[in-house]
């Protein structure tokens, strides 16, 4: 077929122009903003004050930002291990031919269709409530008095509480990704392995896991992207002002753009933009490491 260059340009142009306006312009603007002091995020350029890399150097000297980065790293690492392990376990179980697969899949996925605000409120107000909460009642029932008396929302425990609540909501989403990967593996392989004498555990270890390398990469990337934008849960576990135990970079960024709590505090959208750029670089870094260490292009099935 004869290629019509005009036609190609004509069809591509709208998409390319929209991409440039919707994605590239905000990215470039954010990068530029991060080198300026800007009081309001929508201030005209004439009000911007150039500060070079000061926003970045100040950020890494600011204890509360460093703490926020540590918190998000812990959420990514500890939460990631918990969510990946649980979602893979559920994924494997649900694809093993058990009865009621659709029902369990729907139940485990359910938290994803409930608003994060409603979920966080439910955890805070009901599950973690010290007197009549679900945890308090459950631990009383099994005689674990110390755990029953635990104040989940006190500073020393609130990070744990946040992590548990967040992981609960995320397992279903990643389970679906695992399941789609597992279901791509032909049942013939398992049949052959069974005939050769491999038990279920060996099949999982030597067949399922290696064949899921690509899906693992997808899951890690998705998890990193989601956690880097972690905000609503921290905000709801802190009420008006941010809590030291649960503060995350995006929450700190919000405080810098719109002011903190009830007081009228200094605002600097350029400083906030620098936080956004740092988070973006973190996601790119994780993605690059994943690509370097997890090679799945040698697999064909």
């Amino acid at each position, binding site marked *: 077929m004869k290629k019509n260059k005009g036609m190609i340009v004509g069809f591509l142009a709208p998409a390319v122009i929209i991409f440039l306006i919707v994605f590239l312009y905000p990215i470039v603007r954010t990068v530029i903003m991060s080198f300026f002091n800007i009081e309001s995020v929508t201030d005209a350029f004439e009000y911007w004050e150039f500060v070079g890399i000061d926003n970045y150097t100040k950020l890494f000297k600011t204890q509360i930002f460093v703490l926020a980065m540590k918190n998000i790293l812990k959420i990514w690492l500890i939460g990631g291990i918990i969510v990946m392990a649980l979602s893979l376990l559920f994924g494997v179980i649900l694809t093993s031919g058990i009865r009621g697969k659709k029902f369990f899949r729907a139940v485990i996925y359910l938290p994803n269709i409930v608003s994060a605000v409603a979920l966080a409120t439910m955890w805070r107000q009901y599950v973690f409530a010290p007197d009549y909460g679900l945890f308090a009642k459950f631990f009383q029932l099994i005689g674990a008095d110390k755990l029953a008396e635990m104040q989940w929302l006190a500073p020393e425990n609130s990070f744990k509480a946040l992590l548990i609540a967040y992981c609960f909501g995320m397992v279903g989403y990643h389970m679906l990704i695992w399941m789609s990967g597992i279901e791509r593996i032909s049942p013939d392989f398992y049949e052959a392995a069974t005939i050769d004498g491999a038990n279920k555990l060996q099949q999982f270890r030597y067949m399922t896991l290696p064949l899921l390398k690509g899906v693992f990469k997808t899951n890690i990337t998705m998890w990193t992207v989601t956690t880097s934008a972690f905000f609503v849960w921290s905000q709801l576990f802190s*009420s008006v002002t941010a809590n030291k135990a649960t503060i995350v970079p995006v929450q700190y960024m919000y405080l810098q753009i719109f*002011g903190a*709590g009830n007081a009228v505090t200094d605002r600097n959208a350029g400083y906030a933009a620098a936080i956004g750029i740092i988070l973006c670089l973190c996601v790119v870094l994780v993605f690059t490491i994943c690509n370097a260490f997890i090679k799945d292009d040698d697999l064909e099935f």
Partner: protein
Amino acid sequence: MKKKIVSVLLCAAMVAGLAVGCGGKGEGGDKGGDKLVYWSMWSEEEPQAKVIKEAIEKYTKDTGVEVDVQFKGRNGQREGLEPALQAKQNIDLFDEDVNRVNGSWGKYLMDLEDVAADYEKEHGNETLFKIARTAGGGTLKSIPYQPSIFGFFYNKTLFKEAGIEAVPTTWAELDAACQKLVDAGITPITGDTTYQTSTLGYHLGRYLGQDGVKALVNDPAIMEKVEAGDVEDVNWDDERVLKALKDYEDFASKGYFSDKMASNVYPDGQNKEFAPGDAAIIICGSWLPNEIKGMVADDLEWGYFNYPAVEGGVDGAEANNIANQVFAINKDSKKSKEAMELITYITTGEFDKKMTEEALCIPTDKANADAWPTELTEVKPGFDSTTTYYDWAVGAENNADLTSAMQEGFVKLMVGDMTAEELVKDCAGICGE
């Protein structure tokens, strides 16, 4: 053939969609057209919003001026108002906290000295107008309404049960009252973590004054004055700071605070401990009775006292955080006269009174000076006796980089998980001392 028809129809739909999207300015929608446009900080389901809607209906009926009211909620207002004003969107009037309106959005405000001169004469509460003028840098740029005061609310029934006859006015008297409550088996003080920087700010303010607190937390807005020597440079190694924190450490050691103090994320303390009568005192703003009106114990009788004075302090019980919402008119508004009329409808007479009934708040209009809700009866003398006006949290929250750590440390101090010295060390570290 069918495919071709479908393609043509889809193309037509797409072009029509684009044409609509690129259409010129309409009369309706966000632009408001001929309507008076009001961006409100309230959410539609709040009692304040209901009263405002009624006032607007009456205003439209009386004057024929239609109002496009948009209830944005606190966050919506904080996030969306300034970009909209910068984009020259048609907004005639808006409202929010007095300091935010005059501080963060000051450059968009109309000077109301002339526009509101008659209003002030007839309806203006002297205290509120003084605060509004101070916030506006000496000029009236906002009209106050729904004032509030921050202090200690208490359960009179529990006070009587413990044999407390007079409300505490000094720290020593509060100590004695709390001891009596403990002896009677009643938890003396509860609260929500959200408000604990305010508690700390108040206590530090008693010893240092507001500027002292701001200097202590390195509030960027006051550091210039500190460097110029106009304001005393207060640091965390100041013995008054340690003394203030030791006061709280002492209260904690005597068991005056609820053991859930550190885990009471708003609104747990007010809803689950104060409202049912499980704790006798709570520090909060005068919006408290409205927020918990549906859940208070049948025998709860409302009492209030201003934050007590401390021995050797700079400020006494006459220094308080009186805040209020304010209305402001966009300096670019073409309908400033109508906007001022609407403000008058909402903040005076019938609807101001209705606001006190529906939202259990303090009246704005001086003509309604006797319309205080029963729940706030004891607040009135505290409010009227205030002569020094503190900002929110007495300025203790003005450094966003410090607030989280200070708040967490302070609630730990209240439950005995941290000492005063440890809190001083933590905060000094963050402030680079």
